[in-house]
């Protein structure tokens, strides 16, 4: 039986991508279409004609039907729905790896860290200004305590942000 070359398989791969095939189905559909092309070649068609025939059958309409049935069959079950948050529902059939899902998931946390940083910075500034106008600096005064607290807040938030950033890079690289 005629076998497809990597270039020929790549043509099919592009066809699938053009039609917005879900990642969960990509490898399988590639094999499916390749089998169909091979079948047509086996009954005597040249590759180009076989490819054309298969691409005609795997039309945008066919892919639309696939997406529709896939979403009906694989929607979240009752039990999953109870545990899911809004992000899970919105991103159910969307590409989670693209990044928007992660951004949304981490939004609250990022906001909290940004708040901590701001509060910390303001505290440090206030104590600086206060000690400037007083003309002396003492760690054991009220303004000194505020400075220390602000510094701790700020560096804690900054530290966690940097750590998260590094973790994320590591995750993507993997």
């Amino acid at each position, binding site marked *: 039986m005629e076998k497809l070359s990597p270039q020929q*398989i790549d043509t099919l791969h592009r066809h699938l991508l053009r039609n917005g095939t879900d990642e969960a189905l990509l490898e399988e559909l590639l094999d*499916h279409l390749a089998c169909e092309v091979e079948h047509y070649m086996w009954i005597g068609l040249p590759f180009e004609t076989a490819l054309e025939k298969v691409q005609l059958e795997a039309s945008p309409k066919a*892919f639309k039907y696939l997406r529709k049935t896939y979403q009906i*069959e694989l929607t979240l079950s009752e039990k999953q729905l109870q545990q899911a948050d809004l992000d899970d529902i919105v991103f159910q059939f969307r590409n989670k790896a693209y990044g928007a899902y992660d951004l949304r998931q981490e939004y609250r946390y990022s906001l909290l860290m940004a708040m901590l940083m701001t509060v910390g910075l303001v505290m440090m500034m206030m104590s600086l200004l206060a000690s400037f106008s007083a003309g002396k600096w003492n760690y054991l005064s009220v303004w000194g305590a505020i400075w220390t607290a602000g510094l701790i807040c700020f560096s804690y938030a900054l530290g966690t942000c940097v750590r998260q950033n590094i973790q994320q890079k590591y995750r993507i690289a993997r």
Partner: protein
Amino acid sequence: MEPSGNEFLRGTLKTIVLKLLTERGRMYGYEITQSVKERTQGEVILTFGALYPVLHKLQQEGLLITESVEVDGRLRKYYTLTPRGNEAAIQKVSDFERFVEVMKHLLQPAPALSLGQ
């Protein structure tokens, strides 16, 4: 089969897939469509749009397990029944046979009634 046949097919797709897998053990998607086509002499054509969602659903339900094997430079995904899948297959096939029996009774003209007229 005409488009109206597809309507009947939709509800029985799981049964068909499970039944084929009990007989053949390990199959991949294209192989399933081909064997359905052969056995029905081309009357029933499964499209990929109908088949793969059902396969993934059955896998999610824990009735099938998959393994990917590299064939001719591409990945081929084989489906096999789990023990639970085997039970479900037997159950579904017998349910469907009962349904067909009942439908036969329903579609037959009732002779007793025509005599009564």
